[in-house]
């Protein structure tokens, strides 16, 4: 067993004049949930598909569980579980039949019954795949990815298009997969999803990884800190001299203080209020998110 689940080295993919993936490298440790976060068109799916052996890289390679994908793409596919973004099923096969069919595509397969129970598809066992709801389809999709009991799984935007309830439900499924010690690589453009699920996150934009770390480290490093929003009567002068404050701006009648030490800053604001130097009606403290990281790194929001 290779020490690393995945080693990605300088992957490049070009489509004519467009470079979809422009030299992507990263490693994924065993048992890790690794997220690739980025807007649509950032090259997330192309990167994933090159690693899965579905697309041939123009340059670079990936070693999956010790197997070089350029040398043996089918060998890679035998070892991994793949969930494809937006792929459909055979509409008039039941959930059980779909699992039987895809099980036959692998050397050894988990029984359909076990997968159906795991993904809570019991009620839909005899239902045609074409009649499933969005959340059920995604669970069937993950069941298909689990059919060969893989140690490494690739999930491409597993929760896109789902309602919040179905999304949370799927997060539980992924957390469960991780508890079993499997490695998961997933793409998403939901920063909340990346923060909740992922041990480490690579932020991708225009075919490149612009930052890669744990969600906390990314936030610490790439955002101005916590934002304290106050509505003040009286001037905002001198607020930038308060402890911890790095930056002050006005937005929609609110004064936004970026602070590296929010507790000290709030204490100082309270003191000013008690002294009568200013008076504030409302106070909100907002932790920075990966969204802010993305904004900081690219100057754009994730979903625009």
């Amino acid at each position: 067993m290779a020490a690393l689940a995945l080693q990605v080295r300088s992957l490049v993919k070009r489509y004519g004049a467009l470079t979809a993936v422009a030299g992507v490298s990263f490693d994924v440790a065993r048992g890790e949930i690794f997220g690739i976060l980025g807007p649509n068109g950032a090259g997330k799916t192309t990167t994933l598909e090159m690693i899965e052996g579905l697309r041939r890289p123009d340059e670079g390679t990936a070693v999956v569980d010790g197997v070089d994908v350029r040398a043996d793409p089918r060998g890679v596919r035998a070892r991994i579980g793949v969930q494809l973004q937006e792929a459909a099923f055979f509409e008039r096969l039941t959930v059980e039949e779909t699992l039987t069919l895809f099980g036959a595509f692998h050397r050894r397969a988990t029984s359909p019954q076990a997968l159906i129970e795991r993904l809570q598809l019991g009620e839909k066992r005899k239902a045609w795949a074409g009649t499933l709801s969005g959340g059920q389809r995604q669970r069937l999709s993950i069941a298909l990815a689990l059919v060969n009991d893989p140690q490494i799984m690739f999930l491409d935007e597993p929760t896109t298009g789902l309602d919040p309830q179905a999304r949370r439900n799927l997060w539980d499924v992924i957390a469960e997969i991780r508890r079993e010690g499997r490695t998961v690589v997933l793409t998403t453009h939901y920063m909340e999803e990346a923060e909740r699920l992922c041990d480490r996150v690579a932020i991708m934009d225009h075919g490149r990884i612009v930052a890669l770390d744990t969600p906390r480290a990314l936030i610490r490093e790439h955002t101005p800190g916590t934002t304290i929003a106050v509505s003040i009567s009286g001037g905002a002068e001198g607020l930038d001299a308060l402890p911890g404050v790095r930056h002050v701006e006005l937005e929609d009648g609110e004064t936004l203080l970026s602070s590296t030490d929010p507790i000290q800053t709030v204490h100082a604001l309270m003191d000013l209020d008690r002294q009568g130097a200013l008076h504030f009606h409302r106070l909100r403290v907002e932790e920075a998110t990966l969204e802010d990281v993305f904004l900081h790194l690219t100057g754009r929001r994730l979903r625009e």
Partner: protein
Amino acid sequence: MKAFAVTVLMLFKHYFRDRTSVFWGLVFPLLLMGLIGLAFGRGENLSFAVGLVDEGGGPLTQGLRHGLAQVPVFRLTDEEDEASALDALRRGRRTLVVVIPPVGTGEAVRVYYDQARLQESRTAMVILDRFIAEANLRIAGVKPALRVQATGVAAARRVRFFDFLLPGILAMTVMNSGLNGLTWVITEYRQRLVLKRVLATPVHPLAFLGGLVARYAATNLVQLAVIIVIAVVAFHATIVGSLWTLTGLALLGTLVFVGMGIAVSTVSRTPESANLLGSALSFPMMFLAGTLWPREYMPAFLQPVISALPLTPLVEVMRAVAARGEAVSVYWTSLLYLSAWGLASFVLAAWRFKWE
């Protein structure tokens, strides 16, 4: 091997759960056979309803009457009077009405015919003319200098219209499964990324595609069997040749037209356009290739085109076997030509095929 077998089984189920495919694969061919049979299939029992109005009642009339009754294609009905006979003619119940005048009046034998069915009436008229001429000669006691002795040469077996039609319908169904069915199916699987999902497993692509082709072979055999049973039971069609040979021909045809279907699907992005292109190829063939009526009905300038169509040899050989019980070996050049179409299609398909 397991992947192949399970693919065939599952896709087989998947197919028969689709009502539209059952329509095109089963109901449509049977409907077409029934309709074409109704339109063209009645000419085989050539007979004319002749109404006879006897105004004389003498021995001459008796003689004529007796003579007319001898003409095999005349079904003779004695009429009460001219008016009711003409009424029956107008309502399409008679092809001819013959009025025999009283003897000695010198009046002509009057014949009325249905103008709406000119061709039928003319044929009956010719027969009647011949009969009258013969009668005149006999009465005059002239011995004809020239005689014709006609002997009909029956084929090894009399081929009824449905016997002729059935193999054409079978060949057409095989063609449609590839050009109309598969073109849609494979482009839809590609567009909706079903093919990609299959490719994301370690299965060998040929195990899956082979399974898809075998599914067509299986569903075609089931469909043809049902069509044959219904044609035999409902339309009294008969198959004189070997059913095993027919099965073999159906399988060869399936391979050829499935290959063409895959080739067509490689040039179309959407199921709609692939299906349209497939229909544009299959529809003219359906009408030209001798499928529903003999190809000799088509004008001479089209004959070289008809000979070039891939459906023509399939229809030809299936009909030779089914309707006339001939040996396939006689038709080896036709089969070779058909196979060449299949081979060319598969080469094109393999060269251009895309999974997504």
